[in-house]
């Protein structure tokens, strides 16, 4: 079966404006999310690294400059209205700001009732009410405390969990959660992330968790993609990547997280070095200007993704002895699907084209 969502060489470049240089927001990226193996995949990177662009591409909110995003084997741009509705149902989004997504004039019931009506989830009002109540309980909220209230009467954490409940209503296959906890307190973070994790474990929903916080990514996800300036620096199973990072950027990122330890070595570690003052190269590795191991080879060509372990790929020439991923396809590294996943994809491609042709001839 075709993967639920697949990115094939997807990239995004924003055009220059009034003679300015264009900006590469996401370098070509290939990976897939399969609905048969629900898992949490984290996309981690600093602001401007391209993680939200990736989310928008996968949600069909932005069009790729190159490559394509496929839903069940079909290019998102070529879905017919029925497929589009199915896509909108299967793939849900939870955004960063639990304040901005609500219309303050409507009660919170509105955001829950709209999808029920739009997707005809319930035959009667009573059924709709029962569905909504069930979804709220699914994220640890008491319906009687939530329904009938206005957004400003709920806390940030409650609001964000209502958004998760809204996504849950549609029984989606994938939830793209873009920084869902960056605006809530540390004490609530655990609760919201816990309810997301439960969706995967109990309801079989895959989650793409987009965050700048490597520590929470480590806590909730199975796989991780580390982005740096539009490029994948390192990807693979979260346990390996976080506990033994191989890419110098991942190493820097993990060392920069202040730990609640009695040993104080955080400020001393690099002080104010690594400011990225060295000239950036346009053709070499995007991290070369800050990399402590940068060699002349790093300035010449961008590194390939080398598969250093069955479930890890690193974009660094230090690992050039390892095999490079074919066509940079991270599918096998990111999901637990075996390497056969790649052949699998080639099989479906022709049939895919066939169905499209048949559709056209109809």
């Amino acid at each position, binding site marked *: 079966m075709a993967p639920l969502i697949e990115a094939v060489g997807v990239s995004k470049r924003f055009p220059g404006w009034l003679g300015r240089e264009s900006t590469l927001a996401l370098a070509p990226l290939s990976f897939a999310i399969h609905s048969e193996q629900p898992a949490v995949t984290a996309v981690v990177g600093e*602001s401007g690294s391209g993680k939200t662009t990736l989310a928008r591409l996968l949600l069909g909110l932005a069009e790729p400059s190159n490559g394509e995003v496929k839903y069940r084997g079909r290019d998102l741009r070529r879905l017919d209205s029925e497929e589009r509705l199915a896509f909108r149902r299967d793939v849900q989004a939870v955004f960063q700001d639990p304040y901005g997504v609500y219309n303050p004039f409507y009660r919170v019931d509105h955001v829950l009732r709209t999808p029920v009506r739009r997707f005809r989830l319930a035959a009667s009002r009573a059924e709709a009410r029962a569905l909504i109540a069930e979804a709220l309980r699914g994220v640890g909220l008491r319906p009687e405390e939530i329904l009938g209230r206005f957004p400003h009467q709920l806390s940030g954490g409650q609001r964000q969990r209502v958004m998760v409940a809204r996504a849950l209503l549609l029984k989606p296959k994938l939830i793209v959660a873009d920084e869902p906890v960056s605006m809530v307190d540390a004490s609530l973070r655990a609760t919201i992330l816990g309810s997301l994790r439960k969706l995967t474990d109990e309801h079989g929903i895959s989650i793409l968790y987009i965050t700048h916080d490597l520590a929470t990514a480590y806590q909730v996800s199975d796989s991780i993609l580390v982005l740096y300036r539009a490029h994948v620096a390192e990807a693979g199973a979260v346990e390996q990547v976080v506990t033994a990072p191989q890419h110098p950027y991942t190493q820097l*990122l993990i060392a920069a997280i202040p730990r609640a330890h009695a040993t104080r070595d955080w400020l001393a570690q690099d002080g104010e070095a690594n400011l990225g003052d060295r000239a950036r190269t346009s053709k070499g590795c995007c991290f070369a200007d800050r990399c402590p191991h940068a060699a002349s080879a790093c300035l010449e060509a961008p590194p390939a993704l080398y598969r250093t372990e069955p479930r890890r790929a690193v974009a660094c020439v230090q690992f050039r002895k390892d095999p490079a991923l074919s066509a940079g396809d991270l599918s096998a590294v990111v999901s637990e699907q075996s390497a056969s996943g790649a052949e699998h994809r080639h099989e479906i491609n022709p049939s895919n084209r066939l169905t499209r042709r048949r559709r056209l001839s109809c």
Partner: protein
Amino acid sequence: MSELVLRVEGLSVAFDHPLGKVQAVDGVSLALLPGERFGLAGESGSGKSTLALAILRMIKPPGWIEAGEVWLAGTRLADLGEDRIRALRLAGIALVPQGSMNSLNPVLRIGRQIADAFADHGLRLNRSEEEGRIAALLAEVGLPENVARLYPHELSGGMKQRACIAIAICLRPKVIIADEPTSALDVVVQRQVMATLARVQQELGAAVILIGHDMGLMAQFVDRLGVMYAGRLVEVAPIAEIITRPRHPYTRALIASLPSLEVRGALTGIPGLAPLLRDLPPGCAFHPRCPQAVDRCRTEKPPMRGIGGAEVACHLA
């Protein structure tokens, strides 16, 4: 007593609300030595930022300072008129407010915004003196000289935050209050900005109050930490003491809510919600969320008392 740079005694702040009085800060006392780094931690709504504003007498209606005193190096701030308080802000106590990097004026160059601070504090400088001082300030926070001629949108988040630190230190304050200075920055830039703040603070010999909720950042930066809950300080202790032996159950919960990089699946939140400040539970405000609460916690407000090197407001500590 005279060697203290800042002394806050029983400071209380209340706000009028249609449904009753909101006690945002309730009898907070603290003392800072010159050059000391003090942290204020707690959830949002615990009163950290309000306390900072109250120290500077910047509470606006419908809020008011209900009780308490603030001394800056022996000067009782309540004795000063509005003019002298205004002169003392920035020159004596500088505040780097929350989200300050986004409150730089977008249509003024950075240099002009620093010069504004000089002018407002009655510093008459000629052009070359002014340029020289601005360049020196920018160098102090690790920014190149040409930043003075740039607009805020031409700077990265980390550079904007450094520019804000440059403004905060331009009149050599004795106390710098930094309210979540790095909450919008990624970890690598956060470390650079905090290193800048640490270096500048040491050069000036200024005390720092760092407000935030990231216990990891507190552990790595401050010398002493005060934990606030529902407007009150519930624990104050040297940072090493708090990290290795947190005595208040709320402090323990705050530390535990920090996602670990060592153990997976150890993510624990604090159960329940922060209380409504206008309707605080009787006794200890934390008792509805406290895993160890006993009957006494529900009726009797625990006073702050010294235990070892720490001060804790908990019946069970």
